[in-house]
């Protein structure tokens, strides 16, 4: 279907140009134009998507998809890092909603728990404690904007072509029926997921878990070493008032060890 392909290509290119224009740069020119281009691209893309069936499902899908895409664009184009974090969170909520519509309940909820819950809150901590006032240069200007937009074109284009290939193989009803038959959307999908993770992929899960644990311990050790080195330097700066005792153990190390428990 060359007509569809042409519209998709136009939409992707328009979207990329729009995002590139909207990215924070030194002078805030063309942001409105970029936004308009992006909106046109989004409208084109959504209008070309195949319908799922019922109007309610379609509307739900389109709204969630639009929310996801717009929030993702907001996450990269806003200058205030806190706003970027909020947009990112909203984009993840949109993704979770899409998963819920598709019937992947556990994935949807797990996405919210992991991303929105844990990572974003940590993210907010960093943002608030690092830069309460005024924005640094790296917040005001985004580097390599055109390059990033071009990369985006390639990824979105590849995804579109792949998904388009899958879609052209048959109507949506056929796919969902197939999915039902193979048990992908079976009611026991949480149990199936657990079975897969801790059965077939047990080794990978355990290795990943161990890796994370080692990373955690390593981070703690590094922090500890840095703190000790800092207090050593402090002791050295204090001169004779705080010498190292008993074969090189620093005052700090000794007093931590001898802390009354």
């Amino acid at each position, binding site marked *: 279907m060359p007509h569809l392909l042409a519209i998709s290509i136009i939409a992707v290119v328009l979207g990329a140009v729009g995002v590139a224009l909207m990215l924070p740069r030194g002078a805030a020119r063309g942001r409105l134009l970029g936004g308009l281009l992006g909106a046109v691209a989004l409208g084109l893309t959504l209008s070309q998507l195949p319908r799922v069936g019922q109007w309610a499902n379609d509307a739900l899908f389109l709204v969630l998809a639009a929310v996801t895409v717009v929030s993702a664009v907001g996450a990269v184009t806003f200058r205030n890092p*806190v*706003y970027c974090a*909020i947009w990112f*969170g909203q984009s993840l*909520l949109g993704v979770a909603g899409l998963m819920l519509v598709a019937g992947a*309940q*556990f994935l949807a*909820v*797990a996405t*919210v*728990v992991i991303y*929105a*819950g*844990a990572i*974003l*809150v940590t993210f*907010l*901590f960093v943002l*608030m404690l690092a830069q309460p006032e005024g924005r640094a240069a790296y917040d005001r200007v985004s580097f390599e904007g055109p390059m990033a937009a071009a990369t985006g074109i390639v990824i979105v284009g590849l995804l579109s072509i792949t998904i388009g290939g899958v879609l052209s193989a048959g109507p949506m009803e056929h796919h969902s029926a197939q999915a039902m038959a193979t048990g992908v959307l079976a*009611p026991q*999908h*949480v149990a199936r997921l657990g079975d897969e993770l801790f059965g077939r992929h047990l080794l990978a899960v355990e290795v990943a878990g161990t890796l994370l644990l080692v990373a955690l311990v390593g981070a703690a050790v590094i922090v500890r070493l840095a703190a000790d080195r800092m*207090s050593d330097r*402090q002791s050295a700066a*204090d001169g*004779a*008032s*705080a*010498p190292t*005792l008993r074969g090189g153990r620093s*005052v*700090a190390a000794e*007093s*931590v060890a*001898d*802390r*009354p428990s």
Partner: protein
Amino acid sequence: MIVTLLEPLLKIVLLLAALMTACAYLVLVERWMAAWVQDRLGPNRVGIPLTRVRLFGLGQPLADGIKLLTKAQITPSHVDKALFIVAPMAIFVAALAAFAVIPFGSVIPTEGLPAAWRLPKQISLVVAPGMDVGMVYVYAVGSVAVYGVVLGGWASNDKYSFLGGMRSSAQLISYELPLGLGILGVVLATGSLRLDAIIHQQAASGAWNVFTQPLGFVVFCVAGFAEAARLPFDLPEAEQELVGGYHTEYSGIKLVMYMVAEFLHMITASFLIVILFLGGWHLWGVTGAGNEVSWPIALVRIIVLLGKVMVVILFFMLARWSWPRFRFDQLMDIGWKVMIPWGLVNVVAIAAWIEFGGRLSAVVGLSPIVAMALGNGCVLILCWLATVVADPTSIDNRPRRALPVVGQVGQPRPGGNPPCGKTTDRVL
């Protein structure tokens, strides 16, 4: 078709109306409890409007609501306008969204209703009965609610609000872990993430999880109190320290959203405690355990569930006046050094019981449920004794650098005194 659409809509409308009314009246109950505990009478004046009928002050929520809604809405000039408005909405929506999967009864039969409506044989009293991962969903929505608090605190651009938001986020993140561990034991024992399945399992066996998993119950209750930010864990809005905490700058309808959301958190926590550990709608000899119910049994089950929830809520309110607030480091210590280890022990104990419990109880000669209750009770007592002996919450907040050794206070160290102020073991 229309009826099938109407059914969830009707449930949503009913639930929303019930929740909002419940919030309003729980505020009144809370004020009554506060007054009674302090030897006062509490609000008892406002009755039916425009009459002199008092009705024990039952009109008070209406008056409070009108007052708050008609008050001036102040948006200070120094706030971040967009987030200032979004934050209360976020927490309110998140608090309400949790109720999508929380059952407020068992099922109601549809026998007498016209066949043309093509209703299923039973209507389950959950807004979203198809949700297989209800427990994780509640957990996810709870983690979204942190946003309202943190954003509200940050957007207010005020030090008290910011401190409240920061405290709140730290507290909620810390206590999500023991909360999850408490849930995990129940989910392990049930084998399902559905809340109604958890109730059914307790009803079928007749042993509520509070008996078979006492340690998990304690961990979950404490974490639930902390997640609902109720005293003794109400650090985010400790009036004596932070004015109003994260909602210091809020007024009018936005303040109402925050306050209602807080009450909804408490109601959610109560529902979860009842559903996960106190048997949900089950009561021995009254409600039966099966899935086939008649109308009277269905009503009794609703009443039993709501009655249990009410008792837990009353305990929440009583607890507010019973114990003083923890200091922040104590809060963190209890979370990380007591509750998380307890939760881990609980999960290991339950998992071990599921694997070996059957054989063990056969060897001992007790029925599996009694043996499980006894075994896990022993685990709880052991955990408690270990905590008493180890005393992990006792802290020494003197500077870690260059602390003098105990017993040498005041004695000059070789090479002079450490570079900090006096330290002493004297109890001031």
